[in-house]
């Protein structure tokens, strides 16, 4: 037994209202840079729908994840190592920008510059790739809320598998939201695809990261990841992916997407697992056994034997305690209501989902009968073939039994808690009908419905008792680093090249520039880059406004480098 700790997430889909706050805050925190305009570490998809990038779940087309080869051994679906290397010069199985979307901005300047005219001037969309006018025809959430569903949602690869006769008329369809981040898999196929070995799994908490200094831009990880959650930064030429907000996790804070989730549907905690069992679990023959196999990899943190082995593996005691309080362990293994997304990709994903009961409840409600009665709900779960089969294709490789079991537990909780909320005594037969006792059901209700902050997020801080190693410590010279103080800005080999400056040095240069020049950003050295964070309001930063017309000779003055001083 080799015990390892994994930071994991569970999302309760019933509570997702599709507000995209997680996506927006994540984007603001991580990918609001050039080169990552189309990159969404976190995105929220409407299901049924094509997802982002379009039809990423069609692995016959994109060849992501793992598959068993003829000898029954686990192999990358895109092919063996040699084939992987031979296709390195033009990675063939990779979404093009059309499958994501061509990022754009608007020509806002024309709104203020346009001469007096009869019609209101418009800001036309400009491509951020070519700089030319473009017609916006697709984006990350083009089919949000089933927008254009009759034409668009039929291309959903999952829907195509579920039924040949799909109802997408609005009165008859169902809908839910699926927020997605990187799965931080136990058996990551992106890492396995990376020729440079730049993608690694952190030994302490299992977070999968890209070493930006080691990445050489071969793009194989984009092919390898079946969830298409590794993105290629087209400006720096490096792969980037969700980091599970590791700087926050290390100090005991939840990720940005979780922290800002208004529906409080995300849970973060530790899971202990046996690393020796991962390969065997990922290689089981029948896809429908993968869910049970992955559950079998997890270790019970309350088991003294596991605790001893964890100690031997160097996992700190407070981490084991955190694993015992972990909401993830509770939802996956105690209540058994969380399911992995696409276990058939055999990557052992570690972001799990509680499937939504709402499509079922909606149908029951529309028929006018009591939608909080267990027998009505159970009957509906058994008869509503399409939503249940659809959920099964997402979460259990098509096996409806585990999905039905989870939905029945959620339905039972709904009925049971109604009695309590109405001031009646709970009916013990209801929990018993789904194999739970009353106390467990109440605890589950507490975790799922009340979802207190410190119960949702049990994040033990990383052990880094090395305060002296902290950067920019007052006792050390902050300019004393390898290579000496740089001059800031981009290196000669394009955007983002050159060594990384410590924050203190970057600030130093910015301050120096501010004190020695009249403009905040010199147009020569920093190509019209305006940093409003450091702007003290002392003049107009170059590049912020169009050049002023000189009243004397009427010619325009490029740059306005004197900042308007006499």
């Amino acid at each position: 037994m080799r015990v390892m700790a994994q930071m994991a997430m569970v999302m309760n889909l019933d509570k997702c209202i599709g507000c995209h706050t997680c996506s927006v805050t994540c984007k603001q925190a991580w990918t609001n840079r050039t080169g990552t305009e189309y990159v969404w570490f976190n995105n929220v998809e409407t299901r049924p729908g094509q997802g982002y990038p379009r039809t990423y779940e069609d692995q016959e087309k994109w060849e992501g994840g793992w598959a068993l080869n003829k000898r029954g051994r686990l192999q990358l679906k895109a092919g063996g190592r040699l084939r992987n290397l031979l296709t390195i010069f033009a990675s063939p199985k990779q979404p093009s920008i059309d499958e994501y979307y061509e990022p754009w901005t608007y020509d806002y300047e024309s709104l203020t510059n346009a001469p007096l005219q009869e019609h209101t001037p418009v800001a036309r969309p400009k491509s951020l790739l070519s700089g030319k006018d473009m017609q916006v025809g697709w984006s990350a959430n083009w089919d949000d809320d089933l927008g254009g569903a009759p034409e668009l949602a039929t291309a959903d690869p999952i829907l195509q598998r579920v039924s040949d006769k799909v109802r997408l008329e609005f009165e008859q369809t169902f809908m839910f939201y699926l927020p997605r981040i990187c799965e931080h898999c136990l058996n990551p196929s992106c890492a396995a695809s990376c020729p440079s070995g730049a993608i690694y799994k952190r030994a302490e908490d299992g977070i999968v990261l890209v070493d930006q200094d080691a990445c050489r831009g071969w793009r194989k990880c984009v092919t390898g990841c079946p969830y298409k959650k590794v993105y290629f930064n087209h400006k720096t030429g490096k792969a980037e992916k969700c980091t599970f907000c590791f700087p926050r996790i290390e100090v005991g804070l939840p990720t940005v997407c979780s922290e800002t989730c208004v529906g409080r549907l995300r849970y973060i905690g530790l899971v202990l697992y046996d690393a020796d069992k991962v390969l065997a679990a990922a290689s089981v023959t029948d896809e429908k056994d993968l869910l049970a196999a992955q559950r079998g990899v997890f270790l019970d943190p309350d088991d003294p034997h596991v605790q001893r082995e964890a100690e031997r593996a160097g996992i700190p005691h407070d981490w084991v305690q955190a694993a015992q309080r972990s909401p993830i362990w509770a939802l996956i293994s105690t209540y058994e209501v969380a399911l992995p997304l696409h276990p058939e990709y055999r990557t052992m994903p570690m972001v799990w989902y509680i499937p939504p009961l709402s499509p079922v409840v909606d149908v029951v409600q529309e028929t006018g009968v009591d939608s909080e009665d267990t027998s009505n709900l159970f009957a509906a779960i058994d008869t509503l073939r399409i939503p249940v089969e659809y959920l099964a294709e997402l979460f259990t490789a098509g096996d409806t039994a585990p999905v039905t079991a989870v939905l029945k537990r959620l339905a039972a909780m709904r009925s049971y808690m109604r009695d309590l909320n109405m001031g009646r005594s709970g009916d013990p037969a209801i929990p018993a009908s789904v194999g739970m006792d009353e106390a467990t059901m109440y605890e589950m209700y507490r975790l799922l419905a009340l979802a207190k902050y410190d119960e949702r997020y049990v994040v033990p801080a990383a052990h880094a008792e090395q305060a002296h190693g902290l950067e920019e410590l007052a006792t050390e010279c902050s300019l004393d680093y390898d290579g000496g103080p740089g001059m800031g800005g981009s290196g000669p080999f394009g955007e983002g090249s050159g060594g990384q400056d410590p924050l203190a040095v970057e600030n130093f240069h910015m301050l120096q520039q501010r004190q020695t020049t009249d403009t905040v950003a010199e147009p020569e050295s920093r190509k019209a880059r305006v940093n409003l964070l450091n702007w003290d309001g002392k003049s107009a930063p170059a590049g912020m406004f169009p050049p002023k017309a000189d009243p004397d000779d009427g010619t325009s003055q490029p740059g306005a480098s004197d900042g308007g001083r006499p």
Partner: protein
Amino acid sequence: MTSTLDVLLWVVVPYVCLAFFVLGHVWRYRYDKFGWTTRSTQLYERRLLRWASPLFHFGILAVFLGHVMGLGIPESWTEAVGMSDEAYHFVAVTIGGVAGFCTVVGLVLLIYRRRTVGPVFRATTRMDKVMYLVLAVVIFLGMWNTVAGSVLNLGGDYDYREGVSVWFRGIFLLQLHPELMADAPIGFQLHGMAAMLLFALWPFTRLVHVFSAPVGYLWRPYVVYRARPDRLGTRPPRRGWDRVEPQEPSRR
């Protein structure tokens, strides 16, 4: 009889370029690990790249192996294993010709793509343009030497294995033969000179990605585990007993 110019061109320049090549790579690797990438533009355009890039890359790999054989292996060795001059010549010209043809077609397509596809052209740095120019000159001169010299026999008979190759090996063996290059046809001289310029530029261009050819992938375990480093910043922790010497910040 070697003139000063010959020594300058075929002794001094090679060593200067070699120094640029070696030291430049060391410097670039230390200074710019983050910028060390292929800078792929596949995201912008894939249809042309799908054919052009493998054509060029497999072609240039074959061309490289051909150069290793032609420049690196002395004529006496191939004779020792019983390979006649004609047989060697035939193998070199046919395989080299095919590889060179693939390389040239690939390169032309790649340059066409780079110029005509808007986003790709926008992502092209000044250094890229210089590199493409020099690389194209080297490849076209090399192709010219093969076609004109060996196939069409324009400039008369010239056995580069007794001329250029000996000079090339001499640079590394410190047995200098500038006179051999001085006597070589102009095509070979220009090809060699352009190639040396390319090697000098190499570490400062995207060509550095050649040295990250991920051969180790074939043997390494699929999933890489790494422990979090103890330090939190971007700078290695100083040992407790090191003297603290504040550096004078450099001024422009």
